């Protein structure tokens, strides 16, 4: 629509036409981001307001800031807020991480959850759960370390005078499947209580989320998200292929390493906080790309991921209340129909992807 406006106007100079087209192509992602952010904020507030002890929507923001009667403030600040913030963070970091993986590997199926890379952290976490028991620091640190170790291992094994996206994908897939097999063997060998606990962790859950998970995940996100945004220009070039990227003067290999490590760190931070929440990393970027109609979408992917996790957690809490369903059980139900609808609706040539 916006491009039609540009051509309809009397053209003054080529430079101006390009500038207008450029502005028009940026307007849509920006609008989409605004809508997504508003929706995320709305779900965030609803998520703080509903529960066994309901808080009126008008009281939510004051209560979060510490105003209002004491009981409301305690429920909001100590119970609901950490959970909602966790959901927000986990969704955002998984969404960005998935977008980077899919772009670097140039494959829509190459998100860390479909590729199985997240099982690097799962192996360590399940090992902790089944042998030592749940110690928060060990579980969090182990899961994060597992994700990073997996990332380094995939990169090193796929490296042979450079990492071709194709080899990266195949090595990641094999290592991920090996890690997931090891995880399932560990679960079958464990006693039933640890096994049940491990299963909940594996589907991804915010049930035990508190401020202590917000801190490390938030800190990691604070460092890594700006880093990825700075690198995102190079990501755009990497998407064109190695040869073209090199021709355009990008240090392909170094950019790829930096981006993948940042993405692994983000995936690890998200997984450590809530377990490998199913399909968020996979779905966020394709949904965001179809909404913005832009080729690369880190911020919209983060917002989509956050919205997805928050909405899924809200559903999981209220669907069979008072029983709580882990968020990872719902993410597929919450996001997949929407992605499918978007897929079915794309009817123009070239927008099929």
């Amino acid at each position, binding site marked *: 629509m916006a491009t039609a406006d540009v051509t309809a106007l009397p053209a003054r100079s080529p430079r101006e036409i390009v500038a207008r087209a450029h502005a028009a192509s940026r307007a849509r992602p920006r609008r989409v981001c605004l809508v997504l952010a508003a929706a995320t904020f709305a779900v965030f507030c609803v998520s703080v307001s509903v529960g066994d002890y309901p808080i009126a929507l008008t009281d939510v923001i004051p209560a979060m800031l510490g105003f209002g009667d004491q009981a409301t403030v305690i429920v909001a600040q100590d119970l609901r807020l950490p959970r909602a913030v966790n959901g927000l963070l986990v969704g955002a970091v998984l969404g960005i991480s998935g977008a980077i993986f899919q772009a670097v590997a140039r494959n829509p199926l190459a998100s860390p959850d479909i590729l199985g890379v997240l099982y690097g952290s799962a192996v360590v976490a399940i090992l902790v759960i089944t042998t030592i028991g749940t110690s928060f620091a060990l579980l969090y640190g182990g899961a994060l370390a597992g994700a990073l170790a997996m990332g380094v291992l995939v990169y090193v094994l796929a490296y042979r005078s450079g990492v071709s996206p*194709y080899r990266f994908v195949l090595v990641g897939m094999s290592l991920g499947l090996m890690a997931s*097999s090891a995880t399932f063997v560990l679960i079958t060998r464990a006693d039933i209580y640890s096994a049940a606990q491990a299963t909940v962790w594996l589907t991804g859950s915010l049930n035990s989320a508190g401020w202590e998970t917000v801190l490390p995940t938030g800190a990691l996100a604070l460092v890594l998200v700006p880093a990825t945004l700075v690198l995102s220009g190079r990501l755009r070039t990497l998407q064109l292929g190695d040869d073209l990227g090199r021709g355009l003067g990008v240090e392909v290999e170094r950019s790829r390493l930096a981006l993948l490590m940042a993405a692994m760190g983000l995936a690890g931070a998200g997984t450590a906080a809530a377990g490998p929440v199913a399909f968020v990393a996979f779905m966020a970027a394709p949904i965001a790309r179809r909404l913005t109609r832009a080729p690369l979408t880190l911020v919209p992917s983060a917002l989509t991921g956050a919205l997805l996790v928050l909405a899924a957690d809200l559903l999981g809490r209220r669907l069979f209340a008072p029983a709580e369903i882990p968020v990872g059980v719902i993410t*597929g139900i919450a996001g997949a*129909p929407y992605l499918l609808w978007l897929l079915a609706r794309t009817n123009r040539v070239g927008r099929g992807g």
Partner: protein
Amino acid sequence: MVRGEQATTAQPRTVRWAYAPSRRAAILALALVTLTFVALLSLAVGSRSIGLSTTVHALTSYDPADPEELIVHDVRVPRTLVGLLVGVALGLAGGLMQGVTRNPLADPGLLGVTAGAATAIAVAVLVAGVGALTGYIWFAFAGAAIGVVIVYGIASFGRDGPTPIKLALAGAAVSALFTSITTLLVLRDLDTLNALRFWLVGSIAERGGDIARDIWPFILVGTVLALACGRLLNGLALGEDVARSLGQRVVRTRALVGACIVLLAGTATAAAGPNVFVGLVVPHVARAITGPDYRWILAFCAVLAPTMLLAADIAGRVVAPPRELGVSVVTVLVGGPLFIALVRRRKPVEL
């Protein structure tokens, strides 16, 4: 100058080495011999080791009075048959799936097969109270078929029809949806969890002759159709436009491949649960041996996949007796490092 000479002498050799038809046929024959040997081994090896002469005797002139021959006849022959059938089906389905989605990450379960089958089993146990493996094999098959039909239906909207990227995305999204539904059902009911827990591991243990009898017609038809798809997939691999300009009916090809996938992957998954790794890796191995020609890739898939499956099944029987390790776990843990070594050694033939 020296560099130029090296290039001219080295290049044709690396290109020609394995791709010459006579060489490929020889390797295929070797692979067939290996498969025969592994199949015989699968009859002889187990918690009770049985000599090859007894095994052959049980096959040629069966004597029910001999307990060893009884084991071979009643337990090991059906299991090996199921392994062979499932292996052929998974290998071919993996090759077809990677060909039609042009995605190296496509496994036989991608287009909603595994997730659809799992949901159907969960529903069967929960609603219909089906208990036995033979009872829910048909539910699993129906679920797999429904999954593929939904994926194709959604991917077919729009002017282009089911493009590779839409198929892959729709497949993964439908799988996500079905997986979530299954988990939700399983969480509500422990019996369902119990039934599904064992199916999800992926195994050919305790599969009797009745299952082999049930599945072979499907897999036979699927195999014949799949082997005929090789030429069509070669066309698709050049890109849709080129394929169309070569006179291929792209939409019809994709529908045919979809039907094959329902027959092969659906049956295999229903009978043996999800064995993702075999179908994922074998096409890559076949491609590394033969080059990009799908007629050869599919032929190799059909031979290599059952070899891998049966070998892994044998290893799972002997590694920690008396317990058995599921075939899918063994394929991944043993096959994974080997596959990574292969990927590192060779320049992969990209899709």
